[in-house]
């Protein structure tokens, strides 16, 4: 999810300025492993070029992905290197509370996407989320969503690129320019050649590399500590004052936990608005599901993805906890790193270096590089689709041949990467830009969820209601953010407590902006004319005949696997309560 990057990449900036020496030295087997990865992703792009002749192939991978491929790609597009390092760092800082972002902050939303929303996305045959808004609300809502999305996607790709180059500099001592240009050109080449096909293939590849590259850390770590109980005992011994191993027990008050957040913020802000906004309306991830071969695969893909997402804490949260248990020194905030010290952000590379020798180290570093490149490929492939279909075709060239749009997609992939590189260098000069752009991205996601979900579930929602709700929700979110920057005391009103910390501010700001969006949409819709019911077929619950799954045995139905996933999710909450 994009929101952890704010603290991670900013902190990495600080780390870069203060960490003089590299953490890890690579050997020839490690270099060989990294080189094979680059050769493989480029080879896949070249190979898939021949299969991307039509727009449907280039932008939606021919709509022929199985549930497994679409599901792995869906999870993988979100499993970036900064995500892994950022949440391992957050775990060292906050303990197992960080797992909320993988469980309540993902699983209910993924199941909701699969069971409730995916049928409408899929049946409408839209190419994108802004495309769905056009069908449901009209051009103005689509133009607003598409414009915001394209700008934010490119900026985010640039920020990710710069942050990753910093990671490689801090961890490996690599030159920033070298990292930016080599990885960006590689992504530009394989996505421009193979389109979404190449992006999805590489995301599936990345999924395996990340798991196999990172899995050794928790396995060897648990061997060293003597299992989970040994791990907990060592953490209590090293940090007797804090509770690092309970998910909910400390969330009864803002002051009772290091995140400074109340359980209502986690449940309603993170678990409902932010999570649902990200997983159900961010086109970067939804695009992977739209590539599914049929409606059953489209419903199953996010449900299968939920199982893998639930397991990710094993390779992200556990290394952070192991850092608390076994590292012979204490990590510090990036802003306080002195000579010979390490920041929270370095916990994952430190654990990698602790257990992995040559070869295994190369695999772990390749997993990080793959995560970065895959995330960037996701951004540029989503950008090229939204730009080509929702802006260029709508406002510049309406009736060109399919081949023309494919060419446009290829060129704007390259252009998108170049703009992202420019953004990376801009961020290098003006680091505060990162704060603003990432905040802008979060401004938009929560209201967009309100607009999309009302559009799918309420046939009375009118085109004017959709547009004004989205606009007012976004503007209100920006207003709250600016208000707190201008007067920090306002945080106590927005986040409902003077003890609230920035993490809590994000949760509550998202919740309020969603409420504003929904309220404005409802009021304006009731005052304006709705779309005729016949125009809502395939778009809205109650106006659409959904395909029956009655002929399938229970174990083949998406609802069955969603129910099993939900039960496992609830069990995890109970076990780590």
């Amino acid at each position, binding site marked *: 999810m994009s929101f952890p990057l704010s603290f991670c990449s900013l902190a990495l900036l600080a780390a870069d300025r203060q960490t003089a020496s590299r953490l890890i030295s690579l050997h020839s087997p490690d270099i060989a492993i990294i080189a094979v990865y680059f050769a493989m992703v480029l080879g896949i792009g070249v190979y898939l070029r021949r299969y991307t002749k039509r727009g449907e192939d280039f932008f939606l991978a021919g709509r022929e992905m199985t549930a497994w491929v679409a599901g792995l790609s869906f999870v993988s597009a979100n499993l970036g290197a900064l995500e892994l390092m950022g949440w391992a760092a957050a775990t060292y800082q906050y303990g197992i509370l960080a797992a909320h972002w993988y469980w309540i902050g993902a699983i209910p939303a993924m199941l909701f996407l699969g069971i409730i929303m995916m049928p409408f996305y899929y049946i409408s045959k839209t190419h994108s989320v802004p495309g769905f808004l056009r069908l449901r609300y009209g051009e103005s809502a689509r133009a607003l969503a598409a414009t915001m999305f394209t700008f934010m996607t490119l900026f985010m790709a640039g920020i990710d690129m710069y942050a990753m180059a910093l990671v490689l500099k801090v961890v490996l001592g690599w030159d920033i320019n070298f990292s930016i240009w080599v990885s960006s050109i590689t992504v530009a080449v394989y996505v421009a050649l193979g389109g979404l096909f190449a992006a999805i293939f590489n995301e599936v590849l990345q999924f395996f590399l990340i798991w196999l590259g990172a899995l050794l850390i928790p396995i060897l770590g648990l061997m060293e500590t003597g299992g989970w109980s040994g791990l907990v005992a060592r953490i209590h011994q090293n940090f007797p004052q804090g509770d690092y191993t309970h998910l909910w027990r400390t969330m009864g008050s803002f002051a009772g936990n290091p995140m400074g957040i109340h359980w209502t913020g986690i449940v309603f802000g993170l678990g409902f608005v932010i999570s649902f906004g990200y997983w159900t309306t961010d086109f970067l991830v939804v695009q992977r599901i739209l590539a599914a071969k049929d409606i059953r695969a489209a419903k199953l893909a996010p449900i299968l993805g939920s199982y893998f997402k639930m397991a990710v804490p094993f390779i992200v949260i556990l290394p952070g906890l192991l850092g608390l248990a076994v590292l012979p020194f204490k990590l510090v905030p990036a802003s306080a790193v002195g000579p010979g010290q390490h920041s929270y952000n370095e916990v994952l590379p430190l654990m990698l270096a602790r*257990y992995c020798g040559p070869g295994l180290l190369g695999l772990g570093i390749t997993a990080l590089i793959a995560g970065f490149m895959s995330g960037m490929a996701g951004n540029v492939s989503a950008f090229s689709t939204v730009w080509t279909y929702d802006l260029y075709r709508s406002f510049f060239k309406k009736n060109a041949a399919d081949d023309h749009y494919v060419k446009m997609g290829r060129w704007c992939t390259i252009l998108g990467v170049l703009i992202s590189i420019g953004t990376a260098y801009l961020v290098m000069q003006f680091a505060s830009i990162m704060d603003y752009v990432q905040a802008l991205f979060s401004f938009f996601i929560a209201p967009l969820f309100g607009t999309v979900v009302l559009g799918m579930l309420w046939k009375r929602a009118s085109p004017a209601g959709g547009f004004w709700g989205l606009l007012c929700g976004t503007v209100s979110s920006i207003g709250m953010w600016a208000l707190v920057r201008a007067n920090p005391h306002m945080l106590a009103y927005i986040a409902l407590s003077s003890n609230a910390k920035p993490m809590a501010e994000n949760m509550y700001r998202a919740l309020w902006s969603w409420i504003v969006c929904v309220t404005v949409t409802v009021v304006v819709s009731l005052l304006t004319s709705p779309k005729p019911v016949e125009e809502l077929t395939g778009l809205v619950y109650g106006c659409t005949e959904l395909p029956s799954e009655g002929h399938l045995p229970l174990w083949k139905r998406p609802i069955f696997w969603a129910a099993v996933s939900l039960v496992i999710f609830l069990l995890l909450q109970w076990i780590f309560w």
Partner: protein
Amino acid sequence: MSESHGMVPVWFFVGVILLIYGVVILATGLYEFSHPPATVLAYLHPAIWWGALLTVVGGVYVYVYLPRKS
């Protein structure tokens, strides 16, 4: 996913890269018998069994998803 086009399945590519990585890591693990790395739990020889695992998984994927003329 790809049968209708004759496209090589993504699982084949996964198998190839895991097989290559498995062989490289296994070879490194064998070399480490005489030159052990300065890592915690190095005496467990993780590179040997992890390299072997990757080689087997990669080999199975390559064999099962190998593009065949028929």
